[in-house]
């Protein structure tokens, strides 16, 4: 099996989960993932948590482990919802794919196996939230040609589909599927651009009102 085959298999598996849990749109929520985790008997734990001291979990967004047969994930509370959703989807892949391998002590057959597993988890997560086929269909319906997708298109797409896939992940998907040239969507200040296109978000207006109620 080549890397490419492996990633295709991850996409297939993600779509299988989507079908199983009736995920029909590109908006996969925390509630959806909690249901999936419950079905797979995976306990969700948010860090910081009582009983664990020290550390700052700057590098670790989430971790999957099984202790005495009980699968558990530890997710950082600091993550915004979209990142938490992506991280949970990422850890779900480890449960579905790497659980048995880990238990049997079988290492991945590729060179740099850990990287393949981790990249595979990213592929799985992106597909679970927003399948490539739906993305392509959404791009086509907006008449966005190959190599022609701009940062503004990505912002509009995210707004109109209400997807929970982050701007960065959408940009990666667009690049991977050939809708944007390599590097064209890198280093974009997404939130700033969104604000420029659609105005100040409600939460910012509320915060401003709270600070200066009479303005």
């Amino acid at each position, binding site marked *: 099996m080549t890397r490419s085959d492996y990633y295709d298999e991850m996409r297939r598996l993600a779509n299988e989960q989507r079908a199983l849990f009736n995920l029909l749109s590109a908006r996969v929520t925390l509630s959806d993932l909690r249901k999936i985790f419950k079905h797979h008997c995976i*306990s969700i*734990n948010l*860090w910081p*948590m*009582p*009983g*664990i*001291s*020290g*550390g*700052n*979990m*700057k*590098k*670790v*967004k*989430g*971790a*999957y*482990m*099984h*202790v*005495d047969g*009980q699968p*558990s994930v*530890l997710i950082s509370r600091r993550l915004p919802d979209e990142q938490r959703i992506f*991280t949970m989807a*990422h*850890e779900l892949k*480890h449960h579905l794919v*790497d659980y048995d391998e*880990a*238990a049997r002590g079988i290492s991945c057959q590729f060179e740099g196996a*850990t990287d393949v*597993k*981790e990249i595979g988890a990213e592929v799985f997560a992106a597909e679970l939230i927003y399948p490539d086929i739906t993305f392509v269909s959404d791009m086509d319906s907006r008449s966005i040609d190959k190599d022609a997708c701009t940062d503004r298109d990505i912002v509009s797409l995210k707004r109109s589909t209400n997807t929970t896939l982050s701007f960065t992940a959408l940009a990666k998907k667009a690049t991977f599927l050939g809708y944007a040239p390599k590097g064209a969507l890198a280093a974009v200040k997404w939130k700033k651009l969104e604000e420029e296109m659609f105005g100040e978000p409600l939460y910012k207006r509320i915060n401003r009102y709270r600070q200066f109620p009479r303005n």
Partner: protein
Amino acid sequence: MSKTASPNVSEYLCEKIRELRLSFGGHGISQDELARHLDIQTNTVSRWETGAYKPKLKDLDKLAEFFAVSVSDFFPTKEDFTEPVNALLRAAKDLPDEDIEVLRQFAELKRAQLKLKKAK
């Protein structure tokens, strides 16, 4: 007390709490004093030691912190608790030691939680 001796988690847990309390600081500490330090009722300590109540995980954590031991010390096992079993880290490369410690503690807590559940 040998860590490998008893398969009975409940009995081991009771004895361990008592043993740690009686040997605390070389001269021991009363149930009353321990309860005050942990901010709980005196009779709760007594009930832990007699096995009438099982401490919750957060209580074990308080006890472990007070006696400067690991939560794993309250359970009979030969296994090495310090090993985060089959952890697949989200960002495994170049993890700072303190983050590895967080994951180790997490693995330890989960194992303790399972053992407590089985003991009930």
